[in-house]
């Protein structure tokens, strides 16, 4: 009988922890499998069909020639190989990176401003990044002193976040409601600014390209675009996981965090730079994709609660899978035309946002802040 060894919660301590830990690990395992499966699917689906085993073979053959494929018997054509290796795989991997990155940024921002409705869009960070990127795309890098697309996007997002932060501060305290309102205002400002630049641009074609890219697209993904976001994301997530306690304390409130020994000014500055950097790097590769940073952290919290030690990894994996499927949908629904990713995410995001608004706890959160 296992019943005899079972103890009451008071005896076992604060949390029936063993069960929660194993449940969490199971969830991580399931999500990891989903990441691989969705990527496999993404590599196989498209205008040129590549069957799943062949898609696996192409990738395996490239990674470990002759080891993972049965004696290297190639059952695919060179065209298929080129499509899978040169285009679909980098695109699928970029989808994972962007989805994970935006979701982690969303989770951090929601803790930072203590508002469940926060995301890179709401705070104007994405618009700032887009503005920086549009300047480079339309005026050319030389006009901006040789700034690269990523650097310009990072500068834009950092500028907007710094502005939002300054505007929202009063008496040395940061008011969440002022933060969000300042973010919304700045988002409009930056949107107006890049719209202006777009209108000035004489080439209608370039403007149209930019416009599509502004709504999010992974169409331009190539291998050389992957290392930078991968490194930034890995470093960022590692740092955030190490800081899960201060992050929790900050989510509980500024004064609380101070009283719990968090150097709030420095920590918040680090988080601002980190989120700006992530958003800048991601927007530079994929454009501005809406709603991912809002939806995914919420879904993660529904699954594992509010503790950032669990929320961050689950958000990253969930976001990666989510954006992978969004991109698959964007490529296939209206083929051969591609949909902008924000159109697809809005399809999920808007109903979710409205549902979130209707929840009592969010009502309370909004009225309190």
């Amino acid at each position, binding site marked *: 009988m296992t019943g005899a060894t079972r103890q009451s919660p*008071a005896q076992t301590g604060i949390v029936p922890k063993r069960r929660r830990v194993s449940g969490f690990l199971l969830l991580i395992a399931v999500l990891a499998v989903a990441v691989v499966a969705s990527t496999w699917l993404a590599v196989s689906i498209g205008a040129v069909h590549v069957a799943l085993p062949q898609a696996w073979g192409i990738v395996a053959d490239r990674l470990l020639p002759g080891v993972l494929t049965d004696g290297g018997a190639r059952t695919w054509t060179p065209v298929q190989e080129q499509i899978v290796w040169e285009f679909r795989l980098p695109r699928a991997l970029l989808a994972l990176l962007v989805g994970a990155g935006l979701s982690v940024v969303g989770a951090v921002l929601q803790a930072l401003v203590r508002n469940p409705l926060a995301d890179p869009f709401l705070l104007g960070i994405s618009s700032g990044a887009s503005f920086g990127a549009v300047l480079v795309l339309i005026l050319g890098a030389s006009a901006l002193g040789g700034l690269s697309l990523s650097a310009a996007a990072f500068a834009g997002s950092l500028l907007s976040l710094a502005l939002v932060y300054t505007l929202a501060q009063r008496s040395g305290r940061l008011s969440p409601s002022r933060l969000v309102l300042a973010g919304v205002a700045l988002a409009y400002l930056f949107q107006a600014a890049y719209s202006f630049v777009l209108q000035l641009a004489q080439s209608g074609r370039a403007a149209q390209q930019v416009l599509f890219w502004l709504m999010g697209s992974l169409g331009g993904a190539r291998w050389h675009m992957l290392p930078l976001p991968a490194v930034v994301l890995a470093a960022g997530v590692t740092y955030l996981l190490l800081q899960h*306690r201060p992050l*929790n304390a900050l989510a509980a*409130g500024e*004064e*609380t965090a101070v009283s*719990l020994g968090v150097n709030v000014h420095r920590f918040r500055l680090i988080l601002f730079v980190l989120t700006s950097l992530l958003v800048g790097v991601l927007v530079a590769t994929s454009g501005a994709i809406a709603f991912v940073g809002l939806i995914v952290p919420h879904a993660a919290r529904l699954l594992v*609660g*509010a503790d950032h030690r669990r929320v961050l990894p689950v958000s990253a994996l969930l976001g990666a899978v989510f954006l992978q499927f969004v991109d698959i949908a964007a490529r296939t629904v209206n083929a051969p035309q591609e949909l902008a990713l924000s159109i697809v995410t809005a399809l999920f995001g808007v109903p979710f946002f409205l549902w979130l608004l209707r929840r009592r706890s969010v009502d309370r959160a909004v009225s309190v*802040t």
Partner: protein
Amino acid sequence: MKLDLRGVSVTLDGHPIVHEADLVVDDGEFVGLVGPNGCGKSTLLRSIYRALRPAAGLITVDGDDVHRLPARQAARRTAVVAQETPSDLDFTVAEIVFMGRTPYRADAAGDEELCARALERVGLAGATERIFATLSGGEKQRVLLARALAQQTRLLLLDEPTSHLDIRHQLEILHLVRELGIATLAVLHDLNQAAAFCDRLYVMNAGRIVADGPPEQVLTPDLICQVYGVRAVHRTQLVFERLKEER
């Protein structure tokens, strides 16, 4: 453990809020800070837990200037139960109490045990998995107190710990804190409660500490008239006492 404030002045946005406050809390003492709304009580308290930096003066805990200590070190000496309601993200009671371990390195094995005991101490041992936001006002205050206990400090700061609570829960919280025997500085609103629970009182008015000492010496009709602008009259009145068998 000794809290010592010498000539502490605090300004907010260029407005002087606290003028040259001197205040001492000795080991095991329960000291009350009272005064009318806006007199600077909470501001003074915030300067002790480093939410504000004083414009002048020195605040020491155990002989060290708290504003020179590393943030983590300071938080190992001083815990706070403030008015701020934590988080709109749905933290559980256990997660809130675990936050008390933030100033300490890594997830030590003893943390869980410590937090469990803190919750037991405030009478909420069975509530670990409940969502903090759904608790009643009295339960929330007790959870925050448990978090402060998990922080394992020898100085406790309370900012109106009984506001929004009904009379029974007010008494419960104050009794609980008294029984802890930790050096405590509490901003209190209710003068009768301050008189009943505190070893000593400091009275603030317009940013200055105008009186201090044992409650019976401090809370004279004269002083109350001068500070609050009301006449204090001794009358036969209901005295509320906690029932011993409760909780």
